[in-house]
């Protein structure tokens, strides 16, 4: 609860700071924000696109948050997305299965691809204590170059060297019923997957013995070992889940929001996932809403730019400032505490574990 309030205040402060920047460059913040939100929410199509923008971010946010909760820092979500997207695209371009089966296989392939890419850092961490920050960065670049050569090598279209063939409509996550409902927007089945993933991850973290174990390993691997948990296995498992999530994020991006995979690009959603996770306080539900917020901001920027003279970099600046405020949330907490001081003061006096009568029996000095 407290976390939620803090995050919301951080968001508000970030928006205020953005407003001030708008004023500085001589624009009207109210107008700016009104266009920003119109841009992402004005009509059903735009809402659909906003949700589509948020979808991969839900996955990468969950990926980073899940790793965080288990004591790991996965900054390799970008690479895992690439590989997940690559495998899913490869399946989509190669096999001619009935649509439900094909999509299922593609999502699975994405999950496996991402998990595989995270498995290596997990293994290196568990077996050799290699810092996962370095290894995931390395894996990002290896993924980048793998896609760079595999796509033109095996999935190239007739004319273009820089991206794969376009997936047939039946092999994308877009479905007519959703597209029609949202007026031709890019919203796709990825969103449902994202909701499901959020619920599953929340469930795993909070309600299962697996979550209990993974968190224990994350907090104190020595205590976990003492209690008979298999520390190394858990580290690897954690990375697999984290990578799998990012992998599905790649599927959502390349076969949902797009229909082909381009080379030479490390998807920014991987790094944004860190910010999403942090703003969501590393809780799955928090991540989900943080991703939606990012979706709104990213998606509304274009319209704001189109309607006003506010430059596009401003949306990024606002997001950055929000993150900074989330990082410095302790200031906000202090402020809140001061604000609610009267209430908490009473609590302090009643010390729960001091029984009445005992506390004042002897007095001296």
């Amino acid at each position, binding site marked *: 609860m407290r976390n939620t309030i803090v995050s919301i205040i951080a968001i508000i402060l970030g928006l205020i700071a953005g407003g001030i920047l708008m004023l500085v460059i001589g624009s009207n913040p109210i107008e700016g924000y009104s266009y920003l939100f119109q841009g992402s929410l004005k009509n059903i199509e735009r809402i659909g696109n906003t949700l589509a923008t948020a979808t991969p971010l839900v996955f990468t946010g969950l990926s980073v948050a899940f790793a965080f909760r288990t004591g790991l820092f996965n900054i390799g979500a970008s690479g895992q997305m690439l590989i997940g997207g690559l495998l899913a695209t490869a399946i989509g371009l190669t096999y001619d299965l009935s649509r439900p089966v094909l999509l299922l296989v593609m999502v699975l392939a994405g999950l496996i691809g991402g998990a595989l890419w995270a498995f290596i850092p997990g293994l290196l961490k568990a077996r050799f204590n290699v810092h996962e920050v370095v290894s995931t960065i390395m894996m990002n670049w290896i993924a980048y170059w793998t896609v760079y050569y595999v796509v033109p090598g095996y999935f190239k279209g007739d004319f273009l060297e820089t991206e794969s063939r376009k997936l047939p409509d039946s092999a994308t996550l877009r479905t007519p019923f959703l597209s029609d409902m949202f007026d031709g927007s890019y919203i796709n089945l990825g969103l449902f997957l994202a909701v499901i993933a959020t619920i599953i991850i929340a469930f795993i973290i909070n309600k299962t013995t697996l979550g209990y174990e993974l968190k224990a390993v994350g907090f104190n691997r020595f205590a976990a070992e003492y209690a008979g948990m298999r520390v190394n296995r858990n580290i690897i498992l954690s990375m697999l889940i984290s990578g799998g999530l990012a992998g599905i994020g790649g599927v959502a991006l390349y076969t949902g929001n797009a229909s082909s995979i381009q080379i030479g690009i490390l998807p920014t959603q991987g790094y944004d996932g860190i910010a999403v996770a942090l703003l969501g306080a590393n809780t799955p539900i928090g991540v989900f809403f943080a991703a939606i917020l990012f979706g709104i901001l990213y998606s509304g920027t274009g319209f704001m730019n189109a309607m006003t003279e506010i430059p596009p970099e401003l949306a990024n600046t606002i997001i950055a400032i929000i993150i900074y405020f989330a990082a410095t*949330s302790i200031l906000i907490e202090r402020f809140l505490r001061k604000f609610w001081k009267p209430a908490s003061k009473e609590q302090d006096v009643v010390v729960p574990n001091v029984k009445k009568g005992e506390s004042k029996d002897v007095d001296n000095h």
Partner: protein
Amino acid sequence: MWTIIEQIFPYAIIFTIPLLITALGGLFSERSGIVNIGLEGLMVIGAFSGALTIYYLQGVWSNHTMVLWAGLIMAALAGLLFSVLHAFASINLSANQIISGTAINLIATALTVFLARNITGSGNIRITSGFSPSDIPVLSSIPIIGDLFFTKTYPTTWFILLVLIISAFVLYKTKFGLRLRSCGEYPQAAEAAGVNVRRIRYSGVLISGAFSGLGGALIIVTYAGEFTGTVSGLGFLALASLIFGQWRPLGILAATFFFGFASTIANVSQVIPELAVFPPILLKTFPYIVTLIALVVFSKSSQAPKAAGETFDSGKR
């Protein structure tokens, strides 16, 4: 093959230097106990301020070299100032250092382009020309070594190497270094010994800011020549080199040079028939794969500062 290495070497070194100084900055920060994943953003800040300074001064000041140095100084200053954000969050407010660093990266990339466009009217800032390399007299004629190390060298290279030596000295031989290292290992001990942990950590972070700023600007004044709003992952690579180099100055030198050399090879492999026999994917991924392997090999002796990344407040033991 030898001529190829001779030819590549100076370029590998140019590429290494920004990485080196940035990783060295990261070293100061982490040794003081603050993880700084904002190196990338700080480099961007440095690249921006350096480019902007030079862009303006080149018109008014005729001494070209001085202009470039002024740009470097401004870059270091800007990086230093910007890193205060990270220091404040992670030291005064006990913020999660990863979050704060991420925020730094985001703010830096967004803000610099925003400013560049508002100040110069363009998101790219181009400088007319950077430093010129030269051969060191006498030394460059020494066989082998001369060709590798003393040919086509930039003054900035020697400057950064000097900074490296001074850094190693400061870290291991001075009062400040002792305190800095103690804050990264066990800040509670440092505090109990009367060391002002916050102040030391501030120094660590600010040094990392200044060094990364410098690193960013070095890219501009040596090989890039223009600011484009990104340093394309070099900050993260510096972070990796810091860990790869085991949080030691010489280790970092080796690690960054390895990256510099390997990526230069990978970059130029296309032009070199002798290298064209390898599948290009292998050449391009070579630096990263070798790093992973090297990390495994050196894994036994991790020298990570024990308290890096932990928030420190006096109450906690």
